[in-house]
């Protein structure tokens, strides 16, 4: 009761349009307005963010221009700043993490949604949700004490001796580097992929499965050829979420990547990512152009996320015709 009265008071200036008042009283207009404001707020925050990053990075944009993206010297003493090694590190680590996490995550989600008994699935889901809530610094510590030694002592030497002819797996094995960062990121994003994909798979209508089974498909055929294609868009959504987290992750990455701005074909080489360098150097960045270059890196990260998300969406559009066709089959 009280709320209605206050809102009508609040809408004072609009008195006069009776039909509007009526719609107000019925609530539709209010809900419309409120939800619109909420939606607009998200867009506004995004725009404000870009604006602030843009204004905050005036000096380096004018001084370095496009060179900022293609040079690789990062020297705060002589005020030379190039973002290429950081962009490279961010893209490489995020790619490694997705290459590892997507098959694992979707495979696990299929098991949980389609094959596991409901009780087992629910219990496992509980643990997966717990994993998604673990703070990233914990994953960083895990990386430092478990993944790095494993990498240096066993995994990297093994990869070197078996696949060492590829430039990807050459060079000294420090334990820290692109590969380790990618693996730790993969561990971090798998819960997101499993959790979201499982929900999507579970929401595929029962008729779809039954229809496939009725046509003589095996359980696996119905899952792989009917259920998964039907859920394709949702699964892609889970991958976006994972990608976003992998691109922006800071703490865990800086603890295991080696923090050296290098571009190297070797995945064992130490590297650096955009988020990590911002976190590392922001507090002690004293010169104006130094600080603003870090802000421009923030802008670059934003653009990178934007572009990669766009590319991934294009990929879906390009493949979804086939997907939905199969879903309807």
């Amino acid at each position: 009761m009280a709320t209605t009265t206050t809102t009508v008071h609040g809408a004072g200036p609009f008195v006069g349009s009776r039909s509007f008042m009526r719609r107000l009283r019925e609530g539709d207009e209010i809900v419309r307005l409120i939800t619109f404001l909420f939606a607009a707020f998200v867009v506004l925050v995004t725009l404000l963010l870009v604006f602030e990053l843009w204004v905050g990075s005036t000096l380096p944009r004018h001084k370095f221009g496009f060179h900022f993206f293609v040079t690789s010297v990062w020297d705060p003493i002589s005020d030379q700043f190039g973002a290429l090694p950081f962009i490279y590190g961010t893209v490489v680590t995020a790619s490694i993490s997705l290459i590892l996490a997507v098959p694992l995550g979707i495979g696990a989600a299929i098991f949980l949604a389609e094959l596991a008994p409901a009780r087992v699935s629910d219990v496992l889901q509980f643990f997966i949700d717990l994993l998604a809530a673990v703070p990233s610094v914990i994953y960083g510590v895990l990386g430092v004490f478990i993944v790095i030694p494993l990498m240096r002592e066993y995994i990297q030497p093994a990869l070197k001796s078996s696949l060492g002819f590829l430039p990807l797996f050459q060079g000294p094995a420090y334990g820290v580097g692109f590969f380790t960062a990618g693996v730790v990121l993969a561990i971090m994003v798998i819960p997101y992929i499993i959790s979201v994909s499982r929900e999507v798979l579970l929401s595929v209508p029962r008729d779809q499965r039954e229809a496939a089974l009725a046509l003589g498909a095996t359980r696996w055929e119905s899952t792989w050829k009917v259920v998964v294609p039907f859920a394709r868009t949702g699964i892609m959504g889970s991958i976006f979420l994972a990608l976003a987290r992998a691109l922006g992750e800071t703490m865990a990455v800086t603890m295991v990547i080696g923090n050296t701005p290098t571009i190297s074909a070797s995945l064992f080489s130490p590297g650096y990512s955009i988020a990590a360098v911002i976190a590392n150097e922001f507090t002690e960045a004293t010169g104006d152009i130094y600080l603003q270059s870090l802000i421009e890196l923030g802008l670059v990260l934003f653009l990178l996320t934007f572009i990669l998300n766009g590319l991934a969406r294009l990929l879906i559009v390009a493949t979804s015709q086939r997907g939905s066709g199969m879903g309807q089959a």
Partner: protein
Amino acid sequence: MKRITGLLVAAVLVLAGAGIVWADNPLSINGAGATFPYPIYSKWFDEYHKKTPNVQINYQSIGSGGGIKQVTEGTVDFGASDGPMNDDQLKAFKAKHGFGILHFPTVLGADIPTYNVPGVSAELNFTPEAVAGIFLGRITKWNDPAIAGANSGIKLPANDIVVVHRSDGSGTTYIWTDYLAKVSDDWKNKVGKGASVNWPVGLGGKGNEGVAGLIKQTPNSFGYIELIYAIQNNMLYGRVKNSSGAFIKADLASVTAAAAGAAKDMPADFRVSITNAPGKNAYPISSFTWLLIPEKFSDASKRDAIKGFVSWMLTDGQNSAEVLSYAKLPKEVVVKEKQALAQVQ
């Protein structure tokens, strides 16, 4: 309804009671800056508040760069930094406020070289040439004559050295690169000194704990750590050859000795680097950390409170420095600082 009124009345009474305490609220002074001296600063501010309950000093350890920026912008009453402000920064302060800012050394810190060489558990000796050569990427093997020559009797392996440095901007890096720039012209010209630099070689670890962790885990590694962290964690670290030719192990006494060695030529504004300082027992990779206090305060009670704190810090406060493993100021510097305090008006 009655109960709610009752609660309200009670709440109002409690607030009124608190108001009596508030009426006596202490003068609040805000500072921000260096993280390295934060443990001793918070202990000092706490002790000083107990001694003079009407002064409450709040300190945010946001980093030296942030401290300089905030005190210049006037958002805090004083700043703190591990490296002295440079001439441009002093000029910027003066342009904004119309008066200058003063540096007051509070305690001393030092960096130590630490390493993880399989089969070596002895304290190694390092010459300035060896340290600079390793960090420039010119000395790449542990058995290089530049290292082995100073460590006769210790068998060093022919393994590649893995250099480890700080990845986050820090005063610790400032001291280390300031030292390297003094002992090596190549370092000075190619890299320079600062809280973050463009490292020629090496892996970056975040914070002292990150560097220590990388060194502990990586065989054949070499890096630098803040002395206090090394003492508190019982780490193995090496001696460094000072300007008199003696190999000195860093401890609180040898760091204070470095400050005493530099005190003779102390400039009036205390903006001095004491790396590679003269003195037989001086440890060469040491530095002051400074409070940055504006010359003029519009609020006389704030001015008196800050001056009161600094003179207490220079006398009684110094005694609690060593408990927290900070090297205290030499007597010569304390005398000069007391004189300089009169400039704050």
